[in-house]
């Protein structure tokens, strides 16, 4: 690849093909390796470099003001401090020009300025060489010093907008795209800042981007976005990468999900897999809704049913049962940090978990559930969501959790500085915090637990940076007029549940979509921002709209998703879609979660895991808090979260050697296999034929009948007479019991068991 520069017009040639400069500013199409590249009109080169518009961007591009270097929290790096990404130019000017006894700038001999000596590593620099002597950046910095190193912050034009071209497009696998970034200023000028912008794709498996703004597409079809940052502004280059395969045969569409998923598949040329069979659907949906395996009886009934509506009936049955409530309460309890730090937390944790569970059971509308948490008042025993205020005590933490959990917005960065990837400022952060400024607390008879109430008064909080009071305002909304008598949290809840809220419904449907499809339409599921667009925006919009229209009906959402053809596609890829990881052309198998896996093993082996203080037979998905992670190593090894974070990522879903060893060798698993009255024990004593017993094992583990070769292999294994340690043959029942234990162990250790597929 060669890159040439002519003014601000850039040409890139790939594979020896010459590029054609052109001012397009529109969608580009890359066919094969030949591309048309856009160019933006030249900027106006300032005779005297501007601190704000020239110096800071250079420092940003060189990573001088990154969080790991001189913008590190605290005191920067080795006494030299800069604001993160140059968000505070006035402070940066003070640090560069006036601090360090003025030695960072040497007017008499600009080349000897410490700023340049360090940046070029002429003087040893912990951050290494950030620029070459006499490079364009170096020259600009030097010119700025030579000209007197003025700040001119008040008079210099302000950055008002940025433009990335192209903004979106379709690129073939293996192709590249040069982006051009234009900055626009308050005085009407604009300039090419391509080389001073930062580029970050949201899926590095699909695309990478160079410092010069060249996007390289890999071999995975789908949609990818490259976030482009310049100073405080963010923009995105969205690109579709088609596979280009023929999509001439699509399964029947059942609802809008299928219409939008299939439309996308047609667009990118990825044919979907076939529909999954009944066994797969039964197992998949029972695991996804009820958090458990289907029983042998349920499987048998379902497979033998000829009712054309049996899938719908199954979903309905699962949704109306307590298993659904248990499973989803388990999910929410961890996200809402229902963790036990003190013994005395037990009542609060049980109450809060149960409240979530009962709400699921009663299908409490999601907006109501959130409202009751956000604006909780009273005591935990009388009003369990008050428990959230026991776990999350500070207003800052409260809004950070709420924003991430319920809005899919990560606000943490904005507490100290302008959000680097988002439009949220510190004012936005503290405006949101102000909704929680009137939360009153009174101690209760239980240490560490408060009564929560609304404290009358004008809601406001102090912006820690400006020391100015800030009134409550929701994200992207003007500050409402909230009287001293109103609980501002209720207004926040009103804003959230407003049908036009751009975050609330999307965050939930994306979270639930991920629950069923392993991958959210936006990933991570709680980081929804302009610079991280969904892989199927139309689908996300439609799901959110549907959810709002249903009055935030969670069961309806689950029903809509699981009855879609998309959800019911086979996990087996066809000739084309094996590489697809984000377009839902086939079902993406997912690990059973720790709790579901433990329950599944118990159900399959006939064992029961006992949890201290809970009734015998309590399922792992029904556990109220993290304290039980210590009662069985299983839950820890398989990644059950501790309720320390609102992020689903706290749940470890990746495989590990420890997990494999645990399944193969642990005493806990061995005990389950050999449990008295367990499945192996029962089958060994059964009068049924071995083939029948083996059939039961397959139905219990996989919800399907064994194949002929599987059956024959298993039968032979069971019939084989075993010997004891002395070489004497064991009694038949004992021998069979060992054989069934082995079979169960073997089935349990297959991917077909370990995954929901």
């Amino acid at each position, binding site marked *: 690849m060669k890159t040439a520069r002519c003014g601000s017009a850039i040409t890139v040639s790939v594979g020896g093909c010459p590029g054609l400069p052109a001012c397009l500013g529109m969608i580009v199409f890359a066919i094969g390796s030949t591309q048309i590249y856009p160019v933006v009109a030249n900027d106006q080169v300032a005779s005297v470099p501007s601190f704000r518009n020239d110096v800071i961007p250079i420092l940003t591009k060189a990573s001088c003001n990154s969080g790991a270097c001189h913008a590190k929290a605290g005191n920067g790096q080795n006494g030299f401090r800069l604001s993160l990404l140059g968000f505070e130019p006035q402070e940066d000017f003070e640090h560069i020009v006036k601090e360090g006894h003025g030695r960072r700038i040497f007017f008499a001999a600009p080349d000897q300025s410490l700023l340049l000596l360090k940046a070029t590593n002429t003087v040893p620099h912990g951050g290494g060489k950030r620029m070459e002597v006499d490079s364009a950046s170096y020259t600009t910095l030097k010119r700025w010093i030579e000209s007197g190193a003025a700040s001119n912050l008040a008079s210099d034009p302000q950055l008002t907008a940025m433009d990335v071209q192209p903004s979106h497009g379709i690129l073939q696998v293996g192709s590249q795209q040069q982006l051009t970034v234009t900055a626009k200023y308050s005085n009407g000028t604009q300039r090419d800042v391509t080389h001073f912008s930062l580029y970050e794709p949201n899926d590095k498996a699909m695309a990478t981007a160079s410092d010069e703004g060249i996007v390289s597409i890999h071999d995975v079809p789908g949609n990818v976005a490259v976030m482009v940052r310049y100073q405080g502004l963010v923009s995105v280059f969205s690109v579709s990468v088609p596979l280009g395969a023929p999509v001439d045969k699509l399964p029947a569409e059942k609802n809008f999900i299928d219409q939008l998923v299939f439309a996308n598949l047609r667009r990118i040329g990825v044919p979907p897999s076939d529909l999954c069979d009944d066994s797969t659907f039964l197992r998949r949906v029972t695991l996804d809704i009820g958090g458990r395996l289907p029983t042998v009886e349920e499987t048998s009934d379902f497979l033998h049913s000829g009712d054309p509506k049996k899938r719908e009936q199954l979903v309905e049955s699962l949704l109306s049962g307590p298993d659904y409530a248990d499973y989803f309460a388990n999910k929410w309890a961890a996200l809402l940090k229902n963790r036990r730090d003190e013994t005395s937390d037990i009542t609060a944790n049980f109450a809060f978990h149960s409240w979530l569970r009962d709400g699921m059971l009663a299908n409490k509308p999601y907006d109501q559930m959130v409202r009751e948490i956000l604006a909780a*008042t009273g005591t935990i025993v009388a009003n369990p969501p008050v428990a959230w205020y026991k776990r999350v005590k500070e207003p800052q933490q409260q809004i950070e959790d709420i924003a991430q959990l319920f809005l899919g917005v990560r606000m943490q960065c904005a507490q100290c500085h302008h959000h680097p990837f988002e439009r949220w400022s510190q004012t936005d952060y503290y405006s949101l915090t102000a909704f929680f400024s009137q939360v009153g607390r009174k101690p209760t008879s239980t240490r560490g637990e408060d*009564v929560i109430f609304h404290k009358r008064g004008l809601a406001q909080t102090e912006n820690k940076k400006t020391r100015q009071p800030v009134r409550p305002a929701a994200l992207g909304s003007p500050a409402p007029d909230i009287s001293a008598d109103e*609980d501002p*949290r*209720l207004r926040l809840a009103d804003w959230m549940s407003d049908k036009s809220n751009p975050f609330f419904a999307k965050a939930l449907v994306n979270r639930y979509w991920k629950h069923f499809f392993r991958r959210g339409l936006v990933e991570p599921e709680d980081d929804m921002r302009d610079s991280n667009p969904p892989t199927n925006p139309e689908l996300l919009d439609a799901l959110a709209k549907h959810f709002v229209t249903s009055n935030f009906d969670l069961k309806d959402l689950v029903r809509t998703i699981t009855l879609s053809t998309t959800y019911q596609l086979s996990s087996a890829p066809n000739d084309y879609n094996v590489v697809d990881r984000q377009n839902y052309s086939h079902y993406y198998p997912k690990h059973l979660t720790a709790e579901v896996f433990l329950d599944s093993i118990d159900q399959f082996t006939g064992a029961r895991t006992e949890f201290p203080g809970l*009734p015998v037979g309590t399922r792992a998905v029904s556990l109220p808090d993290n304290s039980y992670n210590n009662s069985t190593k299983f839950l820890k090894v398989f990644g059950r979260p501790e309720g320390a974070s609102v992020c689903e990522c706290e749940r470890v879903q990746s495989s590990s050697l420890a997990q494999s060893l645990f399944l193969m060798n642990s005493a806990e698993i061995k005990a389950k296999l050999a449990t008295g009255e367990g499945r192996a024990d029962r089958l060994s004593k059964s009068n049924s034929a071995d083939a029948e017993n083996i059939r039961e094992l397959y139905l219990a583990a996989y919800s399907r009948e064994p194949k002929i070769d599987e059956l024959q292999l298993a039968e032979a294994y069971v019939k084989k007479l075993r010997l004891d340690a002395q070489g004497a043959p064991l009694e038949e029942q004992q021998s069979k019991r060992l054989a069934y234990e082995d079979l169960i162990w073997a089935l349990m250790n297959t991917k077909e068991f370990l995954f929901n597929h």
Partner: protein
Amino acid sequence: MRTLCSLLGTNVALLTVATCALGQTVGLPTPRLLTVTPMGGQAGTEFEITVTGENVEDSQELLFSTPHIAAKPKLGADGKAVPNKFVVAIAADAPTSIHDARMMTRLGVSSARAFSVSKLTEVTRTQPNTTLASALPLAIGSVCNATITSRAVDYYAFEAKAGQRVAIDCAAVGIDSKLVPVLIVADSKGRDLVANRVDGFIEFTPPATGSYIIKVHGLTFQGGSEYFYRLALSESPSGQPAPRQAATRRVSSFSWTAADASLPILDEGEPSNDRAGTKKISLPCRIDGAFAKAADVDTFEFQATKGEVWWIEVASERLGLSTDPFLLVQQVVRDGDQEKLVDVAELNDIPSPMKISSNGYSYDGPVYDAGSADVLGKIEIKEDGTYRLQLRDLFGGTRNDPRNIYTLVIRRAAPDFSLVAWAIHMELRNGDRAALSKPIALRGGTTVAFEVVAIRKDGFDGDIELAMEGLPRGINACGLRIPAGKNRGILLISSEQDAASVHATAKIVGSALINKEYRARTCFLASTVWPVRDASQEIPNPRLLADVPVSVSGSEAAPLTILAKENKLWEATEGDTLKIPLKLNWRCEFSGAVRLKTLGDSFEGTKIIDVPLSAPEVEAVIDLAAMKIKPGDHAIAFYGGAVAKYRHKLHELNAAQEHLKLVTERLAAATETSKHLADEAAAATSDKRQELAAAALQAAEALKTAENEKLAANQRVQAATDVAQPKDLVDIVVSEPIRLRVNPRSK
């Protein structure tokens, strides 16, 4: 009233004498009634109940706080009383409410346990019902008495018709249980339909006629005999709130008295949430309303005149609800079409007069909250005009529940007070709060101290004299006045050293001069429901008792009695030093240090008295000048922690030893007789031999019987000796009250 000390008030600081030592038991053995099964009964029936408790084994007397319930021991086939079983008869006209049951024992009257009277058919569970298959059928119109098994769920089955409103009510905390109940209604297969984990109540309307299941368990699956409940199933009357079972009263409720009947009663008249819906009222008045809807704000408007003072009281939390009323009064100022609201007053909680325990390991205050989340305060009208009053529930932002009712009273000043008392506690051993649930069961020569706390109303600020009425012979009380402007006093109850066993229901009374008239108010007594051995693990649960029973043991005396050497009015002159010799009657061995502080307003600074163990006398030195004690009459007492080497059931050991002595003598006589007859038989002539041999055989059998009796007597002595082994036991020791008169120094 047997005794009324004329006494000046007291306002001592929190009693915290550290007498901590591991291995010590806290408190002398005291009778406690722990469980009564069933926990209630139907009016107009007679049935058998079983009790359990501590130090109640000798009791054959079960008492109730209402004359409508009577109990007698259940007699076995042999005509003897069956231990721990009684036959209870409830009169047909007995109020359907909660009453207190107690036992009268050798050590006096026991602690109380709630006992319910209902109109429903009573059922007592006898077989385990912890599986769906063993679900206990329960008819609508009945109530089942049961206990929860740890780590288990109780199942009940009932039949109901489609559309029928069935009220399912699980009484637990309100009947003294430790259970925090979870109620779930499920279909006949046990699949959950609806659950309640907050207040043990579900109003269920079956979707179809058929069988349904009720599941009951503890919120955290704890269980055992102390986790009992009464599960009532009844049909909800149409258009009316579903009935709830009666419950004991929380402590805060003592300060709510029924509103003045002469006040006009208004209905809240929803909706009144906004200005348009503002209800116009005239003062004074009483308004009965509800925080029915989420974020409900009830707004009322009235006219008032400059100089008026209106007292406002709201009762809601004190009615037993989980509410937190907040009241805002604003003046409506109109400027043309514009309306401006100017804050006049915000009225919120009734503060507790005392710092409440933080329920940490160390004792740092009483566990009784005499305050309330309700409202009591006044507004002073500075200008003629229109005023608007907003009433909201600070806990009601998100809930919709018409059961959250309130009564709002706006009245002219009606100065008054309410009183509640509880036994004082001190840091005897970290974490132990068992003393908080002690009954007033006195040994001879005992004095116990109670804190009496007042909530003053409508500007009343005068002295409140404390006393007791209805005390039986041998028991005296001395109330230390609650001084003007203060909210706390002390009540001392003493038994005479030679008092005989007796019990009675007494009354604590406070009296005060209000508007030139003496008014007496009955003081409630509060206690914790269960003895708490470790407050860091169990939060003490207090409640009001139904009455004030007092008793003397008669069979035991206090290990230590402290009293003034002379029973007289001690006089001194202002500024002098008063020396009072104290007499100490030690009745058992003590260990550690006994250090006495002083109870009595302004006297807390008295130098601590170090009491040498076994000293017959010590001298209290009171420097009146240093403490600036003013002329007048005062009462004081001395108190501290002491570690006695207590011998439990010494009477039983004495009796066993006496019995052993008797049996031993009987055995000696039988031995002598047997030997004598055997010798005689051996020496007898043949014609007498047979007769004497028979007599000798009879004597030998008598000897064997005597030997067995001695063996049993020895065992009894051994067992009693074991029980009576001296055991370190720490308790609060309070002296008898001492009356002082400080005379003015002549000029």
